[in-house]
């Protein structure tokens, strides 16, 4: 059976919401980073699906996906570096512990 654009968009939406939920509820910083990465993946699916179904002859969507992958990779690298620095100082990556700055 012919898999339509809507199926991909649906899949992307599900993944995006899962990522979103993960980012909110997970206590450990690494898990949050992983769920953010999940959201990035869902966006890529979205882009590729649009490019394949709407403008098959022009590959702009694909380019967009490649660029987003590059950017999110760099960001996750940076995020992990930050988490590592925090771990070295406070021996914990629990997000809940980090509430010294307030007001």
């Amino acid at each position, binding site marked *: 059976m012919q898999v339509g654009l809507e199926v991909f968009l649906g899949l992307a939406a599900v993944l995006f919401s899962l990522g979103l939920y993960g980012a909110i509820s997970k206590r450990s910083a690494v898990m949050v980073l992983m769920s953010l990465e999940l959201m990035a993946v869902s966006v890529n699916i979205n882009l590729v699906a649009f490019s394949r179904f709407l403008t098959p002859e022009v590959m702009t969507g694909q380019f967009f996906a490649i660029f987003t992958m590059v950017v999110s990779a760099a960001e996750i690298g940076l995020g992990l570096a930050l988490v590592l620095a925090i771990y070295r100082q406070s021996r914990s990556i629990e997000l809940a512990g*980090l509430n010294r*700055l*307030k007001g």
Partner: protein
Amino acid sequence: MGYIAVIPLLPALAFAVLVPLSREWRNRMLWIAGAAMGGSLVLSVMAFFATWPGGHAEHPVWHATFPLAEIGGKPLEMGLMLDPISAAMLHLIPIVGKCVQVNSLGYMHRDERVGWYYAALSLFTAAMLLLVLADNFLLLYMAWEVMGLCSYLLIGFWHEQEAPRKASQKAFLTTRVGDVGFAIGLFAMYQAAGTFSFEGVLGSVASWAPGAATLVALMLLFGAMGKSAQVPLHVWLPDAMAGPTPASALIHAATMVAAGVYLVARAMPIFEVSGTALTVTLWVGAITAMVGGLLAAVQHDIKKVLAYSTISQLGYMFIALGAGSVVAAMFHLVTHAFFKSLLFLGAGVIIHASHTQDMREMGGLAKHLKITTVTFTVGSLALAGVFPFSGFWSKDEILAVLLHEQQYGVFAIALIAAFITAFYVARLWFRVFVGPEQTDELHEAHNTMLVPMVLLASITSVIGIGGYWFAEFLGHEGAWPAPVVYLPSLVAAGAGLALSWWAYGRLNIVLNTRPLKQRAGYIYGMLSRKLYFDLTYDTFIIRPFMRLALVFAVFDFKRIDGAVNGVARSWRDLSESGWTFDRRVIDGAVNASATGAKALGSRLRRIQGGRVQAYQRYVVGAVVLLMLWTVVKGA
């Protein structure tokens, strides 16, 4: 005729020269004030003779104007003019002023601020002369207020003591109440006639809207009542006696209090157009004449007697004006000015000699102060209205006018008032000059104080007869008083004198009134001690007569004075509450809004809880809301 403008200028220049000087230089330069007054005296006499034939000329003898300013392109003219009425007043002021100045040399020589006294006196004379010469109501109002200030300065001359300070403030504020009425009269006049000048206003008054004339007239009357101390605005005059006596002689006898009469005389056409204003003036005058006389009869302070007497005599002038006769009012004004200032100067000498103002501590001055006694007697008789002296002629002219206008009710009141006047004049005379001496080494005053009194006494005895030519001078046909008028007035005067002689003059001992006071327990405190019951308690006339006076005195003290003080007191609590309202309510609101903003800020601050997860939840919550909104919006 340009010298007319110099008349008010000379004393004003004297004031301008004296003020900046240091204190001792000012005390040494008194002659400047004297010279200025002398100069304006000479010039005003010349002016008087320049207008001598007088009569009802169409336009004034001399008239000069200069544009003060332009309002909306329309020039506001201001000027001086000389016509019979102003000429009459013009020669009066410097004569009395010169006498007062000479008298003050003796009276005030010990005072170290005498320079300032003469400066204030000069400014006062300048203001009065300007008022008399003004050719429009606005300049008259301006001179009117400057005069009010000078009376404030002179009454409050000895400002170290509490009484003069209070009296001067009360005088200024009460007259100022009248001035507010005067100002509103001016505004209404300008709206109706479009100008302030006499010929502009008086010329067009016939064509005004019906109510306008009455409104303007009543307002001007209200102003005049303030300045001429008519009931109910008379409360300030008795207290004003706290000032130096010669100054009171000039201000509270001759000139300032007469300004109100002069204003109404000037505005007479307006009063005539609005009939009601005339009747109001008539009855104001009648009431004041009675009240003044009664209160004068119960006073113990010699100057307070004269003060209430002035109020009463001014009441007479307002009666004359109310009856529509400018001539009678002006004639009485002139004669009253001379004999009342004579009495005040005399009172000054008496107080100087017996070192007290309270008549009960005086007596037997006749033997030692010969000249004072003679001159004071001339003045008293003139005030009482006895035949040869000026008071008789001017009062009878007023009575004649009343008869002519069929105002019998007021005629009767005037006669009773004449009787009361005679009574208190004689009472004063007997208490001071007859009876045992209560102060030792009485000696005659210095002749600088006596010469002016002799001059005034001679004028008082002479000008009475001039009534006929005075009327001609003001443009009305003169009339010798008819017997039907002068007989009852002579009877009234004689009865008054006799009663007073019988009550006070007969016994040659210091009268003791202790027993009477206990019986009169119910009379309110202070005045009862001043009240002096005669030993012959039972005669019908005196007791009802006294009770009526007391009722007025109580009324006067509690109601009006009370009202004035009441206003002051309520005014103070209003300002108190105003101040707290200001601080607490408005300022409170302003500060509250500031602290409110801070409180709101700190509450908002608490959202920033510090936990990353919380922030993310807020963000996602916002995103979800956003999506819901878009769905709702989109559908």
